[in-house]
Every structure is written in C-alpha cells, then in structure tokens.
C-alpha cells in the first residue's frame, strides 16, 4: 500500500514537473524600470495565483518586430507575449505576425460590467493590440538656466524660440512628433497638421521650421539620452517619454520641470505572436485576461508614471510604491497636464513613414 502510494506520488510529481516545465511563459518587454513595473503589477501576482507558471522575462522589445518576423520565417516562435508600441503592433498585425484578439472574449470586463471594448475605447487601435498604458512624448527643461533671465517655457513653441530660450535642445532622431510640433509652431491649426504634412510643401515647411534650430539640436535615439543630457547640462530643453522625466525629477531630484504642452500621446501594450501552439496560446490568453484587468493596470501606475489604458482604472491610481507621492498629477492623462495634447495618427504614419523618414534622414545628413 505504502509503496503504491509512493509510486503514485512519484509519478504525480513527475507529471507536475513536466506540467511546470510546459508552463514556462516568455514575456518580452522593454527592460529597466518599465519591466520592473510590469513584474510588480502583473507577473508576481499572476505567479502567486498560478504556482505552476514560470514567467521568463526577455528584454527585446526594441528589436521585437524584426525578431518576430525572423521567428515566423523560421517557423519557431519562442515568445509567448510581446510588449510593443501601438505603431509596431499595427505593423505586426499587417504582416500577419500578430494574432487578432476579440475584446469580448479575450479581455476582462470592467468591475462595473462595462465591456472591455468600451472600457479601452478608442485605444484599441489595431485588431491585434491590447493596450496597457498611455504614455506621452513631451519636453522637460532645466529650471536653472541663467541666460533665460527668470523666464520659463510656457508652450511648445519655446523649443523653436532660441532668442528667448537660448541653449541646446534634444530631439528624437526621427520625423515622428518633430514634424508635427514644427508645423504647430509654424501656425498650422492642430486638426490640419496631417493634411498639410501629406503635401510635399507641407513637409518642406516642417523641415524649414526645424532648420531654424538645427544647429542647436542634439538628436537622440534612446529614451535615456535626454534625461542624461539634461542632468549633464548639455541641453536646456529636450523631448523624451514622460516616465523618464518623472524619474529624473522625482527620483533623482534634478532641477528639471515638465512642459506638458502639446504632449503627444502614444500607446504601449501587448500583442500575441501568430502561430502559437494551442496549449501555450491558452496559457497566454489566461495571463492577458488577468494582466490587463482594471486593478492590474491601475497597480502598474504605482511603479511608473504612465497612465492606465482603461477608463475604469483611472480612479484606482494611488501613490507611488517607494516615494509615497500621489501618482495622479504625474499621469500624462491628468486633466491639468492634458490641457493641450496632440494625438498621434497611427494610420497616417503607417502610410507615410517610409517616405517622410527618407526625406527627414536626407535632411539630417546634410
């Protein structure tokens, strides 16, 4: 009897062992503070609830699009869930590399019963995309520049005003956002920006506006560069993701302030790679349903200053886990910060990105 139990227990253990092995789940994200916030808000509670699941973090989101395509061509998908920005999600969906999801069945409804589709609303910008956060690309400026004579930038056009606000600026080394800001400060109304950009003269106009500050610009390609440049006093004003500036201001206590004017909203979220085997797919879907529910999205805002993508999460946003400060005023979506925002047009950029990028890079190289 005893021996039989032992054998049974042994085989059960072996079974659990293989099951645990099968429940490895590779989740790809951006690394750094962002992955840490996901780890605290999503991964840890999920693994507590599901003891058999082991989440493996991969920090390859920056190369995710190319790697997913390579995996797809090789027929060997090793990732289960990938964190990408919305424009990449659209691209992956177009290429057939991401799986389409159905918000009604794949996502949890809000606690008050609002369907997921309504709760996320317009933020479901692609059939394959499950938004997590709203972040914004905006400017931070040093508050201790002697040459400014006590003045502080009040709107986006201060970036183009080197008379009143002399000093170097940092801008991202790509056309997206920069050409929009340039046109806004060249007098184009907000709702006409994309129709103006669509014409050749419109793009020339944007580049001409950027040319007025070209000699004063340091171009960045990684989000960490602007905070570093601001801290080193290399630049006096620079664009980057709002969460990076939050860390610079609140965690590192640098004399830097936020310029929320004309901040450009963008989204970051999950996609499920196309072609996952059924067992892994079921596992991932279970995870996604949990990790994108109202409470989990609100929890993430405790660790990083990005706004939750669900409307129902906003009232639940509390204090920062370590600093103990209220997080709501640091959210890009906070009414005080979002007085004048600019909405990034995904469809438009998907169409014109290649063309405008070529012209922008040619302009930069000259």
């Amino acid at each position, binding site marked *: 009897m005893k021996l039989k139990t032992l054998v049974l227990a042994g085989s059960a253990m072996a079974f659990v062992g293989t099951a645990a092995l099968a429940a490895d789940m590779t989740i790809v994200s951006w690394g750094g503070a962002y992955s840490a916030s996901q780890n605290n808000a999503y991964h840890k509670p999920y693994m507590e609830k599901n003891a058999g699941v082991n989440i493996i973090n991969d920090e390859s989101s920056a190369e995710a699009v190319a790697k997913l395509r390579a995996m797809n061509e090789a027929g060997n998908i090793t990732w289960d869930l990938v964190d990408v920005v919305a424009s990449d999600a659209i691209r992956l969906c177009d*290429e057939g590399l991401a799986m389409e999801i159905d918000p009604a069945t794949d996502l949890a409804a809000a606690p008050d019963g609002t369907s997921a589709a309504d709760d996320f609303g317009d933020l479901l910008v692609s059939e394959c995309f499950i938004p997590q956060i709203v972040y914004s690309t905006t400017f931070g400026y040093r508050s201790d520049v002697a040459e400014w004579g006590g003045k502080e930038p009040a709107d986006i056009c201060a970036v183009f005003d080197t008379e009143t606000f002399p000093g170097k600026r940092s801008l991202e080394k790509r056309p997206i956002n920069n050409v929009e800001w340039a046109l806004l400060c060249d007098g184009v109304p907000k709702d006409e920006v994309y129709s103006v950009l669509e014409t050749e003269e419109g793009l020339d106009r944007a580049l001409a506006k950027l040319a007025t500050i070209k000699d004063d610009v340091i171009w960045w390609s990684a989000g960490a560069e602007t905070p570093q440049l601001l801290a*080193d*006093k290399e630049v006096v004003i620079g664009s980057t993701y709002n969460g990076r500036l939050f860390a610079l201001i609140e965690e590192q206590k640098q004399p830097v302030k936020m310029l929320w004017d004309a901040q450009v909203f963008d989204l970051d979220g999950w996609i499920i790679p196309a072609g996952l085997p059924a067992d892994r797919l079921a596992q991932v879907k279970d995870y996604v349903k949990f990790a994108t529910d109202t409470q989990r999205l609100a929890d993430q805002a405790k660790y990083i200053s990005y706004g939750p993508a669900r409307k129902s999460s906003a009232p639940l946003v509390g204090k920062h886990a370590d600093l103990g400060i209220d997080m709501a005023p640091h959210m890009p979506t906070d009414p005080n910060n979002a007085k004048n925002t600019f909405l990034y047009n995904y469809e438009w950029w998907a169409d*014109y990105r290649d063309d405008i990028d070529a*012209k922008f890079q040619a302009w930069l190289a000259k």
Partner: protein
Amino acid sequence: MSDSTADQVLTTQDGKPLKASLAKALRREKLRALALIAPLLIFVLITFVAPIADMLFRSVENGIVADTLPRTVIALQDWDPTSGEAPDEAVFAALHGDMVVAVEAKKHTRLGSRLNYEQSGISSLFRKTGRRIKKMDDATPFKEQFIKADKKWADAEIWQTLKRFSPRYTDGYFLNSVDAHRTSDGIELKPADERIYMLLFGRTLFLSIMITVSCLLLGYPIAFLLAALPLRSSNLLMILVLLPFWTSLLVRTSAWKVLLQQQGVINDFLVWIGLVADADRLVMINNQTGTIIAMTHILLPFMILPLYSVMKTISPTYVRAAKSLGANDWIAFWRVYFPQSVPGIGAGAVLVFILSIGYYITPELVGGTSGIFISNRIAYHISSSLNWGLAAALGTMLLAAVMVLFVVYDRIVGIDNVKLG
C-alpha cells in the same frame, strides 16, 4: 599496330593500367582530405554562406505581388500604364477574386506594406479595402465598388506601381540603394531632397579611411616600442593595449561621451586653464570628430597586434648593419626597417578598415547626424522599417565595395604582402 600500343601501356602488378590506378589512389586521397575537412566545410556552408546567400537573394526577390494577386497580375498585362487611366472592369474583377482569397489568408496587409515602400498610401489602401471586401457584391461593377471603398483605386499611379512591381524579380531595391528609381520615363535619380544612400556610402568610406589612418599613426609607434622593449616591460605595455578589449564596447563609448561633450571633462579642463572661453566650448561629439575619435580608440588594438607580431620578427641586426654602413637613424629606419614592417601595416589596415566599414553601434551613439554610417541605415531597415529587401541591397552594395577595395589593394600592395606574424 593496335596490339603493340596496347602492350606499351604500363600496368601495375595486378594488371590494371598504371594511369588509372594512380588516378584512383589520388582520388581516394582527395576524398579522405575532403572527409577530414567536411565537418568544418558543412558548418561554414550552413552557418555562414547559406544565410548570406539568402539575405543577398532578398535584394531582388519580389514574389509577393504575383503570389498574392495572381489573377490581377495576369489581367494587368493588357493594361497600358501610360494611358493615365485606371484599368477596366476585368482587372477589378480579378482584383476582387484575389483580394477575397488574400483577406481570408490575411495576406493583403502584408502586400500593402511591401508596396508602401514604393508609394506612400498603399498600406492603408489595402487595409481599408480588406475591411470592405466582404461587403462587395456581384450585382454592381467591381470597379465602382472598389472606387467607392477608396477613391485611390481610380488613380492610375497606384496601378502603375502595382504593374511595375508585379514581376517575381525586381531591381527596385538596388535602384533605391543608389538613390534612383524607375519612373514611366525609365530610370531616374530621385529628387535631391531624398538622396541619402550615396552620401552615406561616401561618408562611410571617408570615415573608415580616416579611422584606419589615425589607427596607423597612433598604433605604429606603440607597436615599434612594444617590439623593441625587453620582454618584461613590453608585457606590461601589451596588457595596457589589450585592456580595452576587456571592457564593454558600450562602456567605452559612453566614457567618450563623458569626456568629449560640451560640459565634459576635456572642455571643462580647457575652460579652466583659459584656453577656451566658457561661451564657445568645443563641439567634439555628435559629429564626425566624435565618430573618428571613439572608433579609433576601439579599433586601435586591431592595428597594433598585427604590426607588433610582424615587427617582432624583424631582426635588429639589419638596422645595426645599415648604421654600420653609414646610414643615419632616419635612413636606417625608413630604408631598412620600415619596408620590412609593411606586411604588418597591410594586415592591420585591412583589418581595421573592414571592421570599421560595417560598424554601427558607436556611430549611432556618438556620430550625431554627420558621423553616421551606411550600416546605421541598414540596421534601421532591418529592425524598424522592416524593408529587408532594401537592407539586403544596401548590404550587397557594401559587400561589393569591400571586395572591389580588396582587389585594388591586391593590385597595389599585393595580398601576399600581408602578414599576421
């Protein structure tokens, strides 16, 4: 007569012709040699040659249009692209048939993003049309329905692009990589504000040559010293030369940022000693200077090591003999020592040049806008725009440029004249 010739054939003991027997032995020998190198050969073929060949093939491969829209491609053969008008109903009906299949397999958006590289706007055209395709019916003409779904379908330009890229192989990527494109009037250079690749190729070559030259100028004296010093002190010096190898590339590049930036260590020092005014600090990074300085530092060991190993073999007696015959120090060096060190210069220069021509992470970090290489654009097209065809074409051009330079080098210096030790 024939009998006597047969008798003259030399045979081995077992009666077989000697020639055949020898050939057989030789063949066996060759097979054995081949078998010995086979594992390496197969390994190299699978892991090196095949992926490169596959990548190069992508620069001309263009099956996606014919695979996704087979009927449309055939129907378009009768359409005259110079007519300036959209094709007739037959083509639209074929397009409808193809699109229904493509939407089912979710291939239409993929084709859209492929054709969007050639003409902006096609990506959303296919996405939008794909959403409408199920609602179309057979009752009304398809042409009308397509144009209702998106009026771009009435535009002849869309169809010209579609027809131009319908063959299975294209030269479009290569044309693009030399800043040209094919219009209805034949091949033309792109408008001046879109030309970038030739500029970048030129810049890559120029900067790589500058980096190679500065590595040589800095590396030669060090290698000379290393070869001349007694073993104990030369070992210490060698460790210093190799030290950068043990530090991460990113750390070294970031260190240069700290040193060279306008509020950096060097500028601070220059301002402190009063050589430079605080208002006009030197710009030494985020431009070509930054790229040359950082990459020279990173690639210097690749110059010093081959130089050192060649110089080590130059016997000091030659220089001594030259001096005893009346040469002064300079002539002894220039006429006797230097020519013997040329193979090391050749090896070091080729190594540094080829490494630098394909570099991309350091220029990306310290190159700003004027100090970036063609490889930065290749990386962009691989990882960001997903235009792998163009990336492959640019890569092929770079490979071809290196090979041409290699041949030129062989003609001028001679490839035998390269030694690693």
